[in-house]
């Protein structure tokens, strides 16, 4: 095997652990990618290469899946990932204003990560809780009926 850097080695060992735990069939790919994202913050190229070898899948297929789902990422992300629902039901109940406040508070545009690596801001399609829009998902915490005034307080809950 070609020599690898320490960081890559950690990733590869982590990926092996995850595949061993979840499984190596094609059907296991999404949960495996989810677990890699959770553990390393994103799915790096060495991770995809290792998954390709372990799961006998082309790197292209892994990349296609990894870039299709918003819950997965091939780019490094902040410690906390904020997903803002941009679907119509949230939009019409004041979502636009909430999102403007959010962007301003974080000084981020969608897709960006803050310089201190604390935040990544993303938009997402419907999260399935339209009755309580506007909706924000931070990591796995869901916030409903959010108003612009609440944004600052919600953000302050995270280290």
């Amino acid at each position, binding site marked *: *095997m*070609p*020599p690898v850097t320490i960081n890559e080695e950690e990733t590869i060992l982590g990926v092996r652990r995850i595949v061993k735990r979840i499984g190596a069939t094609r059907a296991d790919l999404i949960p495996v990618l989810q677990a890699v994202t959770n553990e390393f913050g994103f799915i790096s*190229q060495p991770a*995809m290469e290792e998954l390709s070898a372990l799961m006998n899948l*082309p*790197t*292209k*297929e*892994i*990349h*296609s899946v990894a*870039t*299709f789902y918003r819950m997965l990422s*091939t780019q490094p992300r902040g410690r906390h990932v904020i997903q803002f629902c941009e679907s119509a039901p949230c939009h019409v109940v004041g979502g636009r204003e909430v999102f403007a406040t959010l962007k301003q508070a974080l000084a981020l545009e969608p897709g960006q990560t803050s310089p201190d690596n604390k935040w990544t801001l993303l938009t997402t399609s419907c999260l399935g809780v339209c009755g309580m829009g506007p909706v924000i998902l931070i990591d796995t915490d869901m916030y409903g009926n959010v108003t612009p005034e609440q944004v600052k307080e919600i953000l302050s809950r995270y280290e």
Partner: protein
Amino acid sequence: MTKLTINGIEVQSESNWTILKAAEHAGVTIPTLCYHKDLSPTGACRMCLVNVKGAKGLTTACTTPVSEGMEVETENEVLASSRRSVLKLLLSVYYDQGYKPDDTDNDLYKWARFYGLDPHKYMASKPRYEVDSDPNPFIFVDLNKCILCTRCVRACSEIQGRFVWGVSERGFEAHVSPGMEEDMIDARCESCGACVAYCPTGALSLKPTISVQPAEKKVTTTCAYCGVGCQFDLNVIDDTVVKVTSNPLAPANGMHLCVKGRFGFSYIHHEDRLTKPLVREYLLNGTQRPSKSDRGKWVETDWDTALDLVAKKLADTRDTYGPDSIGVLSSAKCTNEENYLMNKFARQVIGTNNVDHCARLCHASTVAGLATTLGSGAMTNSMQDVYEAANSIFVIGSNTTEQHPVFGAKMRQAVLNRGVKLVVADPRKIELCEFATLHLQQKPGTDIALVNGLMYIILEKGYEDKQFIEERTENFDALVENVKQYPPEKVSKITGIPVDQLYEAVEIIVHNAPMAVFWAMGITQHTVGVHNVFSLADLQLMLGNFGKPGAGVNPLRGQNNVQGACDMGCLVNVYPGYQAVTAEASQQKFEAAWGTTLSNKVGKTVTEIIPGVLEGTTKALYILGENPMMTDPDTNHIRHCLEELDFLALQEIFPTETSKYADVLLPGVTFAEKTGTFTSTERRVQMVRQAITPRGESRPDWAVTADLAKRVIAQGGRQIDAAPYAGWDYADSGEVMAEIAALTPSYGGISHERLNAGETLCWPCPTSTHPGTPILHIGKFTRGKATFLPAIHLDPSELPDEEYPVMMTTGRVIYHWHSGEQTRRVKELMEIYGEPLIEVSYEDAAQLGLNEEVNHVKVTSRRGTITARAWVTDRVPEGLIYGTFHFPEANVNTLTKAALDPIAKIPEYKVTAVRIEAVN
């Protein structure tokens, strides 16, 4: 069968067909974009929507199966309106910068215009992506012209089996991209160009020819690289080949081609082409040659001067030293017609059986081995039937995906689409191992032990096909006696393969019958080459894998026409059609045909003729399109021999390493400039068609040989009487083929007329109405009963020792062809693979101290030294290195040893003991 109506007309359809396929068969065109018959349908583009009576909404014709009584409408105003909407939507995100003058292959434009839309009016006003976004030298990527039909994605995965392309992101951001958003080459692209061939919108184009105009004419011909026998269309403008495009009707390959076939043609017009006969000055002045190693200045001359000079030299040599002092080396790159004439030239005009060609260096062991065991020395099955019917494939000593890339892709397809079990036995971790159920990594030169070991286990388990052995074979007892000497533990020790893998291999190939075995140079290029072939024939006989689809012994022939050159008698012991020169009946037959007395003494091989110079037995050579200075083992010795040679006439398309030692250079032509036939590895005889006129004063090689023959005959000294085929006046190569057919039973029914009428014929094809024989040995072997011939493991002639501790094995890479004369003259191939590389394992690299600065290795054998850049890779295990003979500056044949198989006289290219040092 299913009955349905399409546009009110009753149509019969196979029950498992789609509406689209049924319509195609009924002659009804339904517009499509994402659909291609070679690819799995996805129903994504919505162009093929049709109206099915009673169905809710419109139906995709490409994915919907027919059903009884279905009423389909393919054109009406609603459908046209729907298609116009689809086209407008696609065009709204389509942007054409207008750099490509030839948009004849743009289906989006075709259908837009068909439905009355001006594509330029509806397309986006600005690009979203960089034009020409990928550095691949062959493929021009412009995602502004991509409609996400995913034909490239499916072509790459389903045809080439490489998975370079896929869709990344989603929604409006969705786009096709290579690998993990890498450059194509980094995403392991092999530049086969399948993605381009299947792209319907010009998003992917052939980069080297992006700016050429639509072709004035397209000429369907056969590729002149490997033995797969791909066909394609040469696109010609102004007597120049500008482009190669797929021809969907090609029998062996369909739309598919490899990087060399699709892109490696620009050598045809390279400035180095020989365009005038060249003669050494000393010959024109009638003086002495300056020295042995220096033949002096080249002088351009006319054909009469050059040919008269060669004729006189050859006639004088023959008359002074006897006919066997002349060697005639023919060319597996040339046509059957040309090879037939070279065989006739040697035997009739000179009077010697010293006619040979590079098969001596590649499959001489196969021809000898299979002819003895089965009665015929060729591939028994066709590539397509193996692809369709084999349940397991055993590949030993063939790097198929690099050396026979289009067939290698078919092997990948067989694994991917049908779950065929693949067992690869190779000392290197070749690319095909990724698709293998099992990789047996034997030490070089231990194949007999391996195959005997497998047979031991088969017998131990009682898996042999007793009925087949009883009914169709002989000498089984002798085989059993021999195989008993190869118990698994001993085999494991010799080969380095773990015992359990030997058992696993047997279980795979036995329980997934029929099994087809494939081999190439890894089996043949050994001092035990013939015995290697015996062992593989024995294995298949033991398992009864003969005479049926998906089985057989399948030696993959390297050169485009090496099968044909053998068939045409460019071998020292046989006339065309393997009629032995030692058999009185064949001798009489050809004496009567050619009007002269013929020698019944087996001639000298390539590997004997050239060393014969130093023994004084070889005085002159007439070589057609071979390059022994690059391709024969032990280059320094070959150089010494050629220096000592009295006279060398070389017929070539370029000056080569060998031409430095030639006295006369006769300019021949490439496959694009002549008409004839090639016989592919599956014995398929196919037309090569002239597309352009010969460059400069060069002439088709068959015409040169015929002209030379007449001049040698005119010199006198050898009596040639009037006889049916004594003459050398051929109006065209078709007349030569008629002569071949008359004298060669297996080609008896083959003619240019039949091939031009679209027939595709595998020999034996004995009569003009015979359909050809894709599978050999059905019901009966050519020799009656096949014979088991025991093979005994012997060590290679040179094994590593203290002084030369590393083993070297040699071969080719996908981007280059043999001595590299063609491919080194293709700019783009050189961009990808521009210098010789020596494969070195990570373990050896670490031990040698190879790093970014110190990245070359000096490799020394008992015969010479080369230095080249190291490619540190896990393709080779510790203690083994691999190099090629493509580049004169570091040619592995400087190192290889001319140790020959005693029967086939093939050199042991595959095992050389060397030592390696790191240099920077």
